[in-house]
């Protein structure tokens, strides 16, 4: 069904960004616009979500060029779920940024670029055209470059060089893949490609193309052995930026992998094995990297890598329950990872440092905030009945069912090391006595009430979202189940885009 409301969230973010550019250097107006606009985007995202909730797939043809000739936007349940999650995370980060991002950075255009980034994310989730997906990816990376370098500190720029080089390289691989794909199939529309690819004579060339996509999206989603840029750059920008990156940017790569490998290149035995092996190595390297880090944000960066492996593994198993688990994990992960970096930002405001060796005594001083953080950390680890627990059941179940014991083992080790790392962090940051109380630089105590609320409200919003995912797991499983069904049987998607003409 054709519905022009699909791109409402994209347009809202574009509009906010443009108005904020007009209001250059008016930081208060930009703050209000940003929060208000993110709230509006969230409402529109939920509206879209409830439209497609019962399995309907909405499409929109840009400039009314009929698919497969024009660019088409498609909202199925997978896309709109991710749009909703992006909007929730976007709202939280937008509220946090009002206080958590320095005034200088806001004056130099933090908010407009943030909304361009959100626009790119929403566009990438909603497009149904492979080249248009590339363009949205470029919108995302150019905005993220600016956000990463805004402020221009030494470590930020150093991180940005690595981030920039790897992301441009990823885009080049992706573009090469698109070029070959267009050459061998003659189409760019993903639904049309899904019909044309099985008919191509030279299937070996199709597999090579698939590898280009795997490398391109693999770099973006930080899969072993392509993840090294992530831990060496994500700890450098302000926490609000790191939260957007950690929660959402790697997940776009995951979304693209799921979309491409379920619609265009149905994984054969080799691809499945490859994805599972990559997943195992991603989980293990990420987990072991997290073990030795003492800076909180570096530790969280390695945990991002570790948990990316859970989702890639779910894709590699490519059975209904494994996909269900991977998608549930994706939903949970966006909420929790965004929140982790926001928490790191709050800790930085409380203590002036993010080094675990210099931190301590937070529980004694701020018991309520510590308990709030505990909820998030428990969700991350997956203590039942919180949100990280449910998807793992499905992943374990199918890892054993399909006799991928190495992956099941990696899942156990990954979960266990996550627990150990988080327990260590909890003991060091919250329970241990403060090592040198005289060097504490507590900005939080001096803040007036509304600023404190602005810092903690986003953490509370995301923590409640995590709690909702955990306690109302049945509803989330229902959504993830429908998404997994749509990924495995793509004919409704193809029919919706091409209008049933095939």
């Amino acid at each position, binding site marked *: 069904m054709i519905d022009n409301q699909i791109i409402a969230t994209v347009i809202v973010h574009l509009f906010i960004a443009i108005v904020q550019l007009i209001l250059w250097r008016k930081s208060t107006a930009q703050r209000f616009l940003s929060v208000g606009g993110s709230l509006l985007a969230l409402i529109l995202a939920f509206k879209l979500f409830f439209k497609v909730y019962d399995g309907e797939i909405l499409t929109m043809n840009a400039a009314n060029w009929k698919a497969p000739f024009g660019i088409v936007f498609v909202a199925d349940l997978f896309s709109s779920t991710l749009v909703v999650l992006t909007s929730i995370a976007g709202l939280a980060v937008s509220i946090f940024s009002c206080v*958590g*991002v*320095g005034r200088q950075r806001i004056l130099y255009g933090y908010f407009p670029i943030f909304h361009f980034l959100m626009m790119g994310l929403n566009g990438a989730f909603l497009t149904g055209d492979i*080249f248009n997906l590339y*363009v949205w990816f*470029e919108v995302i*990376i*150019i905005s993220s*470059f*600016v956000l990463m*370098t805004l*402020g*221009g*500190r*030494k*470590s*930020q*720029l*150093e991180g*940005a*060089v*690595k981030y*920039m*080089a790897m992301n*441009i*390289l990823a*885009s*080049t691989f992706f*573009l*090469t893949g*698109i*070029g*070959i794909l*267009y*050459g*061998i199939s003659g189409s*760019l529309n993903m639904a049309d490609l899904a019909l044309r690819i099985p008919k191509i004579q030279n299937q070996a060339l199709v597999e090579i193309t698939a590898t280009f996509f795997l490398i391109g999206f693999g770099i973006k989603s930080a899969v072993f052995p392509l993840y090294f840029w992530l831990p*060496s750059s994500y*700890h450098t920008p*302000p*926490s609000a930026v790191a939260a957007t990156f950690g929660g959402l940017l790697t997940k776009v790569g995951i979304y693209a992998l799921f979309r491409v490998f379920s619609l265009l290149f149905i994984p054969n035995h080799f691809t499945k094995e490859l994805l599972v092996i990559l997943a195992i190595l991603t989980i293990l390297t990420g987990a072991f990297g997290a073990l030795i880090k003492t*800076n909180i944000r570096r530790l969280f960066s390695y945990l991002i890598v570790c948990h990316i492996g859970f989702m890639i593994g779910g894709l590699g198993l490519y059975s209904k329950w494994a996909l269900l688990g991977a998608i549930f994990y994706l939903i949970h992960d966006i909420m929790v990872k965004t929140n982790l970096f926001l928490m790191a*930002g709050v800790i*930085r405001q409380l203590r*002036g*440092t*993010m*080094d675990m060796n210099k931190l301590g005594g937070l529980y004694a001083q701020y018991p309520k905030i510590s308990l709030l953080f505990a909820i998030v950390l428990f969700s991350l680890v997956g203590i039942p009945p919180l949100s990280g627990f449910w998807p793992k059941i499905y992943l374990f179940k199918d890892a054993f069912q399909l006799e991928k014991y190495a992956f099941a083992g990696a899942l156990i080790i990954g979960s266990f090391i996550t627990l150990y790392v988080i327990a260590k962090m909890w003991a060091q940051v919250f329970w241990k006595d403060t090592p040198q109380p005289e060097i504490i630089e507590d900005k939080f105590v001096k803040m007036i009430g509304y600023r404190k609320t602005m810092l903690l409200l986003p953490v509370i919003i995301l923590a409640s979202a995590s709690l909702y995912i955990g306690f109302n797991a049945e509803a989330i499983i229902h959504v993830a189940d429908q998404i997994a069904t749509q990924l495995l049987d793509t004919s409704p998607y193809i029919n919706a885009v091409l209008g049933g003409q095939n």
Partner: protein
Amino acid sequence: MELILVLLIGILYAAGIYLILRRSMVKLLLGIMLLGNGTNILIFLLGNIIKGKPPIIDPDLKVFTDIYADPIPQALILTAIVISFGLTSFAIVLLKRVYALLGTDDLDDLNTPEEEDI
């Protein structure tokens, strides 16, 4: 014509990857640019090069009967060139800033021990 382009693509990719693997930041930048150009020519080549047959339909005809040049690859390349132009100019400014701040062109020197900030 095709053969020349194939060779050119091969050279551009090889040179690009070789330069990216070097430790110098300027060579990294040049490598990325060469790789991007290689990709553009690859798209051009794979869109089937047909000379002198514009995709303009005769007013009397309803469908194309003749073989025609596909305009899509050129549209894709144009988009890709514009994007890579933006990215490259950003990268140049970034690398210049890093050079001014660190006084080195070596990528291995980009590992200053942690400094604490927001």
